[in-house]
Every structure is written in structure tokens, then in C-alpha cells.
């Protein structure tokens, strides 16, 4: 789609040629810098940010048996970032014997991912569906879902994701609305976090933490400072920190070496690109003077 490769190279200065390197060379470098650290990992320790530690502490201090609302509010497109957070969050909850109520406000795949993760991590800890955890599934129109559950969850969710009526699920009989929920652990890649904060935290005062994609993390820090969120995991890096904190390293931790290398490469690209740009500009202005 970019025909730079076909351009005439002759008669161009070094800097001009450097500016028009074939993109496929850049792509190959990127591929290599991801593949190499995955094949030969370095296992560098990840420094833990205060927000991730706060996230861990908030979950860790919940009394055993508390009910945690666990929204799987992410699209499958960000699974490599969000799945490790959700997995680590579930491991932490189940290890602390918290009871997890999963749900999703993302129609495209959210409830199916919730199902898969709850079942696989639940069985890791020998938990029973319906007693220790449940997956409510998806209902449309998130703002109405979030507010409606404040009055009566069964009004919004007559049945769980598999179609079992809520009144025949032991866990849900004890959780009629937000009053019986102790905590919200959001994993999200979109504006749903803002809704949880501005609707549920503001109106019902439920304490919450969020694991979000790196793109969203800068905005979320504003909620941390205003105490609307108690803790925050940002992207694969945040997931790796959390894995480290719960002492169960997994996919995110293994990805961090590649993350380091590729960041270096991109920074090198920015510097080299700009250097070439300035040299070219200087060359041209010198030509102009002659």
C-alpha cells in the first residue's frame, strides 16, 4: 500500500535514503525483537508501582467469604492484556476464599470469556459453580444494568449465562443487590470503568479497583487520586506486577522481556527517524543557501 520501495533510490543523499527504508525491514526487526526474548527469556524482575500494590492490598484485606463483583468488561481484542489480569484476580480471590459474581457488559465475547476463565481458575481451586462463583452473563445497555442491579439483581438477570434461574442458585439467593456486595474488581478495556466509578461508586459507595489496558491507564490515575478507585493495574505490565505480588508468575510476566526489547527498538526508531529528519533539513537549507 505504500510504494516507497519502488521509488528511485539513485541521486539521493544518505539521509534521504535512510528516511525511505522499506517498511518490511522495520517489520522484520519488530518480529525478531518479540520472538527472541520469548525463546530465550531473561526473567528480569518487574518494578511494582504503588497503584498495583494498592490493588493487591485492597483485595488481600477482604474478609474470607466476602462477595466480590467481577465484571469481565473487555473485548476479545485485548485478551493478551486483560486475560492475565482477570486470571490473577480470580486466583487471588479464590485463594482468599472470596465468592465471585462474574458478569460482563461487553456483548461481543465478554460472557464467554468470563465462563471460560471462571471455570478454569475455579477448578484449579476446587470451587463449585453456584456456591463459590457464578457467571451472570451479559445484558444489554450497561448504564441500566449497573443501576438496575442496585435495586434487584434478579430484575436485570432473571437467569445466569447458562439459563439457570437465579432463585435456584445458592450464591445468588444471598446476593439480592449491591447491599450484599463487598467489593468490585473490574477488568476492562473501555469506558465501562468510568461507568462503574461514576454510577456505582458514586451512588452506592461500593469500593472498587480496576485492571485496565495500558491505553486507559493514564486517565484512571485521576480516579486513583480522587479515591474513586482504590487500586489500578495498567496493561500487561500491571498484570505482571500483580502476578508477582500473588506469587504466581504466568503469561504477563513472561511477556515483559519482549516488552523491554521492543520498547528499545521503537525508541531507537524515533531517535533515528528524527535525527535523519534534522540532518535532511540541514542539508536542504545548506543547498538553499548555495
Amino acid at each position, binding site marked *: *500500500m505504500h510504494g516507497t520501495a519502488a521509488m528511485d533510490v539513485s541521486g539521493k543523499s544518505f539521509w534521504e535514503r535512510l528516511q525511505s527504508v522499506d517498511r*518490511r525491514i522495520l*517489520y522484520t526487526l*519488530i*518480529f525478531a525483537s*518479540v*520472538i527472541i526474548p*520469548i*525463546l530465550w527469556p531473561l526473567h528480569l524482575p518487574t518494578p511494582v508501582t504503588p497503584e498495583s500494590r494498592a490493588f493487591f492490598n485492597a483485595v488481600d484485606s477482604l474478609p474470607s467469604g466476602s462477595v466480590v463483583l467481577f465484571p469481565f468488561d473487555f473485548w476479545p*481484542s*485485548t*485478551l*493478551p*492484556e486483560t486475560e492475565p489480569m482477570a486470571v490473577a484476580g480470580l486466583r487471588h480471590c479464590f485463594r482468599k476464599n472470596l465468592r465471585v459474581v462474574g458478569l460482563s457488559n461487553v*456483548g*461481543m*465475547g465478554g*460472557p464467554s470469556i468470563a465462563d471460560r476463565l471462571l471455570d478454569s481458575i475455579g477448578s484449579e481451586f476446587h470451587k463449585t459453580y453456584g456456591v463459590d462463583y457464578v457467571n451472570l*452473563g*451479559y*445484558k*444489554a*445497555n450497561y*448504564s*441500566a444494568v449497573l443501576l438496575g442491579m442496585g435495586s434487584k439483581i434478579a430484575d436485570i*438477570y*432473571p*437467569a445466569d*449465562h447458562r*439459563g439457570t*434461574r437465579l432463585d435456584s442458585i445458592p450464591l445468588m439467593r444471598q446476593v439480592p443487590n449491591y447491599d450484599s456486595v463487598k467489593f468490585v474488581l473490574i477488568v476492562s478495556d473501555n469506558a465501562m470503568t*468510568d*461507568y462503574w*466509578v*461514576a*454510577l456505582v*461508586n*458514586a*451512588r452506592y459507595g461500593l469500593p472498587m479497583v480496576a485492571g485496565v*489496558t*495500558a*491505553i486507559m*491507564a*493514564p486517565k484512571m490515575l*485521576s480516579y486513583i*487520586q*480522587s*479515591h*474513586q478507585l482504590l487500586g489500578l493495574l*495498567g*496493561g*500487561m*505490565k500491571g498484570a505482571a506486577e500483580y502476578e508477582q505480588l500473588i506469587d504466581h508468575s504466568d*503469561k504477563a510476566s*513472561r*511477556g515483559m522481556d*519482549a*516488552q523491554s526489547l*521492543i*520498547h528499545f527498538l521503537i525508541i531507537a526508531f524515533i531517535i533515528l527517524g528524527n535525527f535523519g529528519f534534522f540532518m535532511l533539513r540541514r542539508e536542504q537549507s545548506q543547498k538553499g543557501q548555495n
Partner: protein
Amino acid sequence: MPEWYSHPFFLLLPTAFFTLAIFSFLYKDNPMFKLAEHVFAGLSAGYYFGLIWQSVIRQQVWMPLTQDGQWSVLIPGVLGLLMFARFFPRIGWTTRLPLAFVIGSTAGIMFIQQLHGMVLPQVGRTLLPLDSLRNILIIVGVLTTLIYFYFSKPHTGTLGWIASVGIGFIMVAFGAHFGYTVMARVSLLIGRVQFLLVDWLGVAR
């Protein structure tokens, strides 16, 4: 079932095929990618259809109606069906009713949510004592950003000066955002390469 079939390489072959088909876009736009795009769009539409059929039509309309005798669910049910009225020109306008209901009530929730859940706490937590450089910078950053997006006066004189401080702050913030976005995209690529090398080919762990 023969043994080889249950090897991850064969089990995950379709997944790997479509993953590679999408990566082929990097070389150039090609029929493989286009096929993957259409398969994807078809599955997505099908996913919504199955999901809504089960979780909305069955659970929220059919079950309450037949099992609990809740006749009132017919109202949203009919409103929902009116969404399809646009396919019939003569009653097409009725499709605006469910739309007006959903958008109107969402607007009501949003109005309160923005003022009560966002503006109040965010403004309240900016009232920090001027006792550290950190606090001073936070207050200056919030206010100059707000003033940069003030359109009723030209950016000259003092206001211009404040606005240029604001744009400085904004650029630092966008730089941070930029760095984080790079991090996010890179993570997704790492995730996919992990799938190809670890889960599918099993050449690393």
C-alpha cells in the same frame, strides 16, 4: 480418533491459520486477509444473534412471560420489535419510539452521572493545600488545561500565557499516553506471538 489429531498443532490449526491470515496484511492487502475479515464479521454478527436470542429474548422476555406470567414484559418486547419497523417504510417512523426511550433514559442517567459522579468528586479532590510542589503542579495543570479549552476569549495577554502553560502540560500528558499506547499494542503482539510459539508450535514455554 487417531492420536495425532489431538496434538495441539492440529487442534489449534484453524486458530493459527486465521492468525497468520491477518498478519499477512502486513505484507499487503490480500484475499486471505479479506477472507479472514469476512469470516470474522460473519461470526460476530452470529455471536450477537445467538447471545441476544438466549440472554434477552429467552431469559428476559419468554421466561418471565411463560413461567411467571409477567405480562408487562410485552411492552419492552413490542418496543424492541419496533426496532425492526424500519424495514417497512409505512410504519418506519415507529422505530423512533424504542430509540427515544433508550436514548432518552440513557441521557437522563448520563446527565446525573457526569455532574454527580465525575465533576463533583474530580473538582473536590483538586482542592489541595498549597504545601508541596506536587500539589501546586496538579492544581496548575488542572486549571490551565481547563482554561486552554475556554473558547470565549482570544488567547492573548495573560490568558494566552496561561493557555501556553496549559498546552505544555497537555503535551506531557499526551506523551505519557503515547508511551502507554505503544505498550498496549506491543503487549497484544507479544500475546499473539506467545500463542504461535508456545501454545501452537510448542517451541518455547
